């Protein structure tokens, strides 16, 4: 059941901060609503006790994309449909665009937002792994403060983040990636369209003279929350680009994911699949970097 509540449509971030000022948890921001409303419907405890919703639809400053001093800032309430058609994001952050295309249906992508995807911190939030490999940071505002935090640090555990009740995430900030990076995103769902992801991986790789100079890998869905796999990245660094090294990296990744997620009923299926996905991703990226 959708609880009895009030809906406000503030016009600016300042107004939102004022409305959130003494929030004790009964006020919640709603962007696309594609998570909150089905959540209400099943009486999910995640959305219990909400009495006021602040709808972001009219806050234009939360939907823009701009580049300044090599930092791309993306308004947190941008929809996935708008990400997919945005020229800046298409040229600088192709993995984010690719992952956005795999989210939900057209109807969902027309409403669901980038900020909403990680603020709910569902393990299957498809845009998180790409944001992590791009070293995304987020800007958080309240009536009295403003802070910047690494996205990875913001995500605590499934469905939990460091967001306080009086705060709003206003922007996602991504440094313009070096043009030497080639990358890819892969999502495995149970079916091709409109799927919830089971496994997703984002990867960026920079090679020089057939040596891996830098590799960045992040996982989604297969780990409890989206996670950068720093030790695998470290392991890959300096390796010569050949089949054997790629296999070693893939095996290492599987081990690491198992360590992060613990053994689950699905591990026997997922780990070899993750390893295979990783191997194929590296091979594909290497082919494109030649």
């Amino acid at each position, binding site marked *: 059941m959708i*609880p009895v509540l009030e809906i406000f449509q503030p016009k600016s971030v300042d107004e939102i901060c004022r409305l959130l000022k003494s929030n004790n948890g009964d006020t919640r921001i709603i962007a696309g609503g594609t998570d909150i409303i089905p959540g209400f419907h*099943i009486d999910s405890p995640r959305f219990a006790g909400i009495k006021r919703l602040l709808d972001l639809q009219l806050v234009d400053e939360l939907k823009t994309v701009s580049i300044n001093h090599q930092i791309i800032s993306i308004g947190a309430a941008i929809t996935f449909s708008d990400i997919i058609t945005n020229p800046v994001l298409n040229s600088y952050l192709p993995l984010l665009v690719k992952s956005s295309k795999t989210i939900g249906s057209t109807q969902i992508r*027309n409403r669901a937002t980038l900020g909403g995807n990680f603020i709910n911190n569902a393990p299957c939030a498809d845009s998180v792994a790409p944001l992590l490999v791009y070293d995304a940071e987020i800007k958080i505002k309240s009536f009295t403060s403003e802070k910047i935090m690494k996205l990875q640090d913001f995500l605590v555990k499934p469905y939990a983040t460091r967001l306080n009740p009086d705060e709003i995430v206003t922007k996602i900030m991504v440094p313009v990636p070096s043009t030497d990076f080639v990358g890819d995103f892969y999502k495995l769902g149970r079916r091709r369209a409109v799927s919830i992801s089971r496994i997703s991986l984002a990867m960026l790789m920079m090679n020089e003279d057939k040596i891996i100079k830098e590799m960045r890998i992040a996982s989604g869905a297969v780990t409890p929350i989206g996670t950068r796999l720093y030790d695998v990245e470290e392991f890959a660094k300096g390796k010569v680009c050949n089949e054997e090294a790629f296999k070693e990296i893939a095996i290492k990744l599987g081990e690491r994911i198992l360590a992060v997620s613990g053994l689950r009923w699905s591990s026997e299926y997922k780990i070899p699949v993750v390893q295979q996905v990783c191997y194929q991703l590296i091979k594909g990226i290497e082919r494109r970097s030649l």
Partner: protein
Amino acid sequence: MKINFTLNSQNVSIEIEPNLRLLDLLRDRFNLTGTKEGCSIGECGACTVIMNSKAVNSCLILAGQCNGAEIITIEGMESDGKLHPLQENFLKSGAIQCGFCTPGMIMSAYALLIEKKNPTDEEIKEAIAGNLCRCTGYKQIIDAVSQSAKEIKINT
């Protein structure tokens, strides 16, 4: 709370409970029962309407979020008693069997045609991926949409 919005090209103003879903607003308050409720959680697309030129699931939107919006439902598709080419072609191609998915399907197709005059079959499939049909097997629906795109192009 009171909201004002455009519904099938008419300005409307109505006093509502904010927690009413757009779907219920359309069906119960405006008696526009063409829009259907299937799953209530954004999976089936039976409740699809157009909001500000885009296809959305009306089961996932609260009426309090619609102030100032422009909404089109299946009832807004005909003009002067004539069916829209999409409606004509759904009938002709056998893209309707039980008809439950049809209004949502047509609204998704309409949103596609607003954006793309010449959609490929792949683009049509993508546009209706969020609309489930348990009867037709989709082939007839894709044919109906692509036929409509051709006719609309000739007539404009």
